[in-house]
């Protein structure tokens, strides 16, 4: 037997699965080099490789016959809107369940207390901590920052049913500008004045740094008067701050309120933006923002008294989150 044949026979051939992995490009570079150098000198392995390549191609071709018709891909934005609506719905359900649980607990406690005390009247305190409405701004709060606008619009800040101790955290230790301090303080005082219904403002994590406004859709900068006319006189913004720009997205044909972004300047020169519009659009816009963001849901009645759902309000800007929360309370 010639020496070369013996050498080939003794050579370890490449296992089948390794050839599959090699053809599937699932091996490291060094493994590929090793296999290729072996293939160069081993005709049986080359033959095996060709056989596996053919098998692989045939499998792919057979599987390709099992394909559905070309699917119609819905627009990404449509699916995003569905996802946003679901997130909101879930939050509402969680909130409702929380409320129900609190009421049941309070009633349960009341009943227990009642049975302990005897046949006397039920203690009034048993249900007292539960306010009647989610917007629990105590009337005694000094200069209540949430005032019901004179038109039929209301901002409902997300609220938690369970009492949380009033914030013990100090306001931002290094407030960059003195003008921000009163707002933060006001938020603190308001929160401290609500023993059972602290405000919970959701913080949306934002991963991306992008421009001010997403490119999708046509934005128009409008004058204050023009914006008021277009938005049916209500343009949400933080009261008491100078408005720099008002940008609007949406048609002017009266088919619903448009999406508005009001940019306002703090005395420190920093900018904050107040956004109001359909949930999908607002969340899409927020997904392009960096820095802290606070949101609230909006309830709105049109002239015929019909409730228009699925709108959302948000404030963002490169200022501390507590400051944004305070500003949210000052939105008119």
């Amino acid at each position: 037997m010639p020496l070369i044949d013996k050498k080939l026979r003794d050579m370890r051939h490449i296992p089948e699965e390794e050839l599959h992995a090699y053809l599937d490009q699932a091996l490291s570079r060094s493994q590929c080099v090793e296999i290729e150098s072996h293939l160069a000198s081993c005709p049986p392995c080359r033959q095996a490789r060709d056989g596996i390549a053919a098998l692989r191609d045939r499998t792919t071709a057979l599987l390709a016959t099992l394909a559905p018709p070309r699917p119609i891909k819905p627009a990404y934005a449509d699916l995003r809107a569905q996802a946003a609506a679901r997130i909101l719905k879930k939050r509402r359900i969680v909130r409702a369940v929380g409320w129900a649980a609190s009421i049941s607990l309070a009633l349960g406690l009341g009943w227990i207390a009642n049975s302990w005390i005897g046949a006397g009247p039920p203690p009034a305190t048993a249900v007292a901590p539960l306010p009647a409405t989610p917007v629990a701004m105590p009337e005694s709060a000094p200069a209540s920052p949430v005032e019901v606008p004179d038109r039929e619009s209301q901002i409902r800040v997300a609220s938690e049913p369970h009492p949380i101790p009033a914030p013990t955290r100090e306001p931002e230790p290094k407030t960059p500008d003195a003008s921000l301090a009163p707002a933060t303080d006001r938020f603190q005082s308001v929160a401290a004045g609500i023993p059972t219904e602290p405000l919970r403002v959701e913080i949306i994590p934002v991963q991306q740094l992008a421009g001010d406004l997403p490119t999708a859709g046509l934005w128009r900068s409008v004058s204050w008067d023009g914006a008021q006319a277009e938005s049916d006189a209500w343009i949400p913004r933080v009261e008491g701050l100078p408005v720099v720009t008002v940008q609007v997205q949406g048609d002017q044909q009266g088919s619903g309120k448009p999406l508005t972004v009001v940019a306002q300047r703090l005395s420190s020169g920093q900018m904050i933006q107040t956004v109001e519009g359909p949930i999908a659009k607002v969340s899409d816009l927020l997904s392009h923002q960096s820095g802290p963001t606070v949101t609230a849901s909006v309830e709105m009645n049109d002239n015929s008294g019909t409730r228009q759902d699925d709108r959302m309000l948000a404030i963002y800007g490169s200022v501390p989150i507590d400051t944004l929360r305070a500003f949210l309370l000052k939105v008119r």
Partner: protein
Amino acid sequence: MTDDLKNLYETTYAAVVRFLYRKVWDPDRAEDLAQEVFVRAMKHNPDKPRAWVFAVAANLARDEARAAVRRKRHLTLLKSDPTPLTSPQRSAEDLIEHNEKLERMREALHALTPRDQEVLLLWDAGLSYPEIAEQTGLAVGAVGTTLARARRRLVDAFDRQEAERHAAHS
């Protein structure tokens, strides 16, 4: 992350529909489920979106299969098959033959073990060996072995059915 998901959606949607179709055998349902998968991905923002999307797709398909069994609903390939190669010019005979071939192919796929089937379909959907390993619980090194076996068995099963068909016709 949002852009990652958007890119993934643009590049992978068709593969997810195909992956689901090969499990539920109903093109409309496969599209519905694929959309559901991406809506969930947007809601959860997973770290490894591609692997996540296929894992959820596999779970949805499994739930769907269980529900179908409960309802005793039998979808046949002939009823729901897409006929991607069908054209108006194709004769009725050709169409029947094409559908029979699809049916044999589907049976060949079902002849594989669930694990072999899963690995093969995930590979065909474009997942890498490490992604397949993570989803199926196999070691990365075992993916090649499984894929080698699955490919061989699929082709063998299909050829066996072709041979049986020829024998029956002659």
